[in-house]
């Protein structure tokens, strides 16, 4: 850490830490079973609040510190077992956590709004007033943390300011804590004129002397205008490791005269000087901390990941030196070494790539962590009983993806709570357990992450979905759709099954926005449902936005890349399997569906090897619940490609999501399947064809 580290940076660290602490408090509070407080959990919660209070005061965020103090006081009582852990208390704590979070996140924007904090403080106070019997017996509330500052012990002769006689006989082992009496004497000498007289030296047996023991006693005489508090402070840490007698010297009259003035002086001086004072002595408030963005741009990396990276770089250097031998004198006998070196290089590169990507990877628990709370609150608001089960929360994915998947997930979870799960009465009547189950699963599948949101609610009413879709003109009146297609109609723009706008999920944002957000991340979402049994939403996402698992396809001289995520299958069809609809669009039959043929060479205006459908391949790709067959000349290899934006030096193009650089240094364009569909549509291709087999 460099010397010129800015205070603002340190304060920013405090903000980040506090946010983490609040997350811990929240999740641990959720773990608390009312009535039975687990002491470890309570301690964790308490410590987090305590740190926020302490840090807040240190960094000059008095509002935070003050409010955290109230929270801490109540927590301390619960921790000490003086107060029962009730649902009300936990609720109040959770609200306080929210409030602290709001306050913390706006710290850098200027003065904190304390309205909410004040309200909650009153509620906290009120709760404390209802002192449980234990709390009364323990002697009041709120002072526990600060009463034992050693310097604060008032003595009878506290008011005496003047000279003192001190008899000090430390215990033999006082040196073991490095409390050298000499240091204490030096400190006393700084207060006034000090005479020191050692006692007990005559009894020392130098033969058996243990230099680590202190066997002397001292008689000290301190002259000056010194208060008892100043002396107490000096001996504060050793007072129970010694025999200590402190007596005032001098006449009583002069003492009285000086009382009025000195008492106030003492009072003001003490909090600053006392080493163990609990009074916050804040550092100057930090004027301008960098904005605490919710999407924090820094990343905390486990040291193991960094070490792995360093090791790999080390290996790369070895490979490089091995290969550099071929620089000048090339000899065919060394061919095998060259080949070996290249193999090693490709392994190094692959491993390095994986390690670098791993640095950006974070467990999905960061996105899942908000759900226990959300499910609890939403369930309460709706009068539904919900059990949340979370699996695979350690599944890692790219930080950027993680940050952007949060909102769609919240929407889907809310949707399940709101529309999926039934009230206890309804569930009981249907012969189901009164408590509904909401399951969140995450796992890796190939290069993708799959997230499932499963509820055991009523399921999606397909008849109703279909009738609404017809009503809104999303489906032709006579069109017949498979169950799967119907279910996924809910993701279409302009579709919403809510009759009355709910407070929870009906916020003007439909499932189409969820689908679009997920599509923006290069993923897709599908729904499955069974009436009366529940629904399952499956989100499939790339692990990272920087690299894509691509299928290279060739059309004429051009190579394009299609994300493996969007490819359903690749088939070869004969021209006899193609139907022409309305003279323009070609359709081919894939099992029970007719899919339009999208001819890339026509769409892109390029030369293909052949325009005959028999000569090429159809890559069946899916986007937004629509499938198309992309006609290409040939498939090439599958490979991971690094995505480069086309926009950074050119502009966004419909149907193209970016570009990449292939092994030979040439640029290949990456297809955007939803964009291709739109492009196809714009160019007069017809997509709204009957989707069910008529053949």
């Amino acid at each position, binding site marked *: 850490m460099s010397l010129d580290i800015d205070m603002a940076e340190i304060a920013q660290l405090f903000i980040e830490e506090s946010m983490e602490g609040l997350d811990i408090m929240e999740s641990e509070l959720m773990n608390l079973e009312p009535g039975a407080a687990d002491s470890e959990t309570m301690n964790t919660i308490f410590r987090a609040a305590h740190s926020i209070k302490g840090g807040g005061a240190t960094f000059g965020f008095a509002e935070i510190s003050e409010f955290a103090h109230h929270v801490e006081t109540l927590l301390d009582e619960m921790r000490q077992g003086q107060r029962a852990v009730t649902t009300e208390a936990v609720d109040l704590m959770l609200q306080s956590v929210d409030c602290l979070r709001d306050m913390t996140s706006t710290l850098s924007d200027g003065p904190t709004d304390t309205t909410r904090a004040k309200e909650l403080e009153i509620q906290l106070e009120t709760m404390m007033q209802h002192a449980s019997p234990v709390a009364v017996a323990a002697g009041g509330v709120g002072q526990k943390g600060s009463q034992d500052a050693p310097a604060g012990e008032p003595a009878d002769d506290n008011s005496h300011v003047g000279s003192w006689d001190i008899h000090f006989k430390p215990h033999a082992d006082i040196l073991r804590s490095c409390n050298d009496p000499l240091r204490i004497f030096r400190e006393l000498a700084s207060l006034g004129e000090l005479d020191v007289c050692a006692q007990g030296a005559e009894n020392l047996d130098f033969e058996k002397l243990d230099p680590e023991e202190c066997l002397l006693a001292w008689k000290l005489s301190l002259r000056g205008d010194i208060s008892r508090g100043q002396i107490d402070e000096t001996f504060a840490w050793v007072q129970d490791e010694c025999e200590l007698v402190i007596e005032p010297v001098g006449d009583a009259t002069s003492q009285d005269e000086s009382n009025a003035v000195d008492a106030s002086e003492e009072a003001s001086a003490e909090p600053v000087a006392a080493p163990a004072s609990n009074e916050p002595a804040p550092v100057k408030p930090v004027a301008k901390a960098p904005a605490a963005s919710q999407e924090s741009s820094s990343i905390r990396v486990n040291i193991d990941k960094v070490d792995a990276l360093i090791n790999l770089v080390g290996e790369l250097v070895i490979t490089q030196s091995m290969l550099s031998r071929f620089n000048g004198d090339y000899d065919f006998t060394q061919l095998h070494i060259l080949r070996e070196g290249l193999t090693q290089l490709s392994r190094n590169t692959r491993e390095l790539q994986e390690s670098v990507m791993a640095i950006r990877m974070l467990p999905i628990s960061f996105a899942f962590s908000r759900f226990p709370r959300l499910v609890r609150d939403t369930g309460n608001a709706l009068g539904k009983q919900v059990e949340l089960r979370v699996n695979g929360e350690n599944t890692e994915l790219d930080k950027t993806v993680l940050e952007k998947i949060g909102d769609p997930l919240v929407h889907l979870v809310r949707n399940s709570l709101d529309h999926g799960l039934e009230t206890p009465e309804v569930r009981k009547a249907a012969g189901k357990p009164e408590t509904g189950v909401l399951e969140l699963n995450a796992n890796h599948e190939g290069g993708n992450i799959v997230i499932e949101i499963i509820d055991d609610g009523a399921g999606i009413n397909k008849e109703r979905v279909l009738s609404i879709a017809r009503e809104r003109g999303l489906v032709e009146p006579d069109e017949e759709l498979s169950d799967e297609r119907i279910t996924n109609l809910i993701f279409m723009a302009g579709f919403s099954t809510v009759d009355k706008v709910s407070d929870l999920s009906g916020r003007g944002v439909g499932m189409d926005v969820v689908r679009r957000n997920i599509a923006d991340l290069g993923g897709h979402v599908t729904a499955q449902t069974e009436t009366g049994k529940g629904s399952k939403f499956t989100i499939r996402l790339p692990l990272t936005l920087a690299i894509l698992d691509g299928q290279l396809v060739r059309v004429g001289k*051009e190579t394009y890349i299609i994300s493996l995520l969007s490819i359903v299958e690749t088939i070869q069809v004969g021209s006899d399997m193609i139907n022409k609809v309305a003279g323009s669009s070609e359709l081919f039959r894939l099992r029970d569906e007719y899919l339009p043929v999208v001819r890339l060479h026509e*769409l*892109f*205006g*390029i030369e293909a090897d052949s325009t005959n459908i028999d000569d090429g391949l159809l890559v069946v790709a899916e986007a937004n619940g629509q499938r198309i067959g992309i006609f290409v000349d040939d498939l090439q290899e599958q490979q991971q490609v690094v995505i*480069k*934006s*086309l926009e*950074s*030096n*050119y*502009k966004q*193009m*419909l*149907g*193209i999501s970016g*570009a990449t*650089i292939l092994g030979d*240094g*040439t*640029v*290949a*364009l990456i297809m955007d399947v939803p964009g291709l569909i739109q*492009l196809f549509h714009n*160019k007069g291709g017809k997509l709204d064809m009957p989707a069910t087999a008529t053949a």
Partner: protein
Amino acid sequence: MTALRKQVDELTSQAAEGDAAGQYLTFLLAGEEYGVEILRVQEIKGWDSATPIPNTPEHVLGVLNLRGAVVPIIDLRKRFELESIPYGPTTVVIVVKMINDGHERTVGLVVDAVSEVYKLETGEIQPAPDMGGSINTEFVRGLATVEEKMLILLEVDEIVNFSTIDIDESEEAAV
């Protein structure tokens, strides 16, 4: 007469200001010599075939890999609606930095050949007259005469307008 002349001079020199003075890299295009501000030039590289981007105007040849960056390549002859010629050994790509709407882009310009670097003072640069349609005046920053030759100084940022590039032009190109 002289007073009026002086006024005009002042006006034109003011108009040509906006640091038009400076060093210019010149290149040849269909027999004319053009100049671009040297500070905008990032590098000059030989012509290499680009990956075409579908549905773009004809003057957008495609994209090239420039040390890991994907850079669009513009054929200036086509951009200026001049007669196209086959690319030869002197054909080069001048990689320049363009700023449109606050967005900085790196773009390659294909020209017939590079020529010289000239240092021009403000007084040596005249405002562009109407070029009679062959070159849109908005590309032109001004004219200068050096060694009896006329230089056409280009306004780099105006060569390609990325916000409108496909709207009217590509419709034609696409059909």
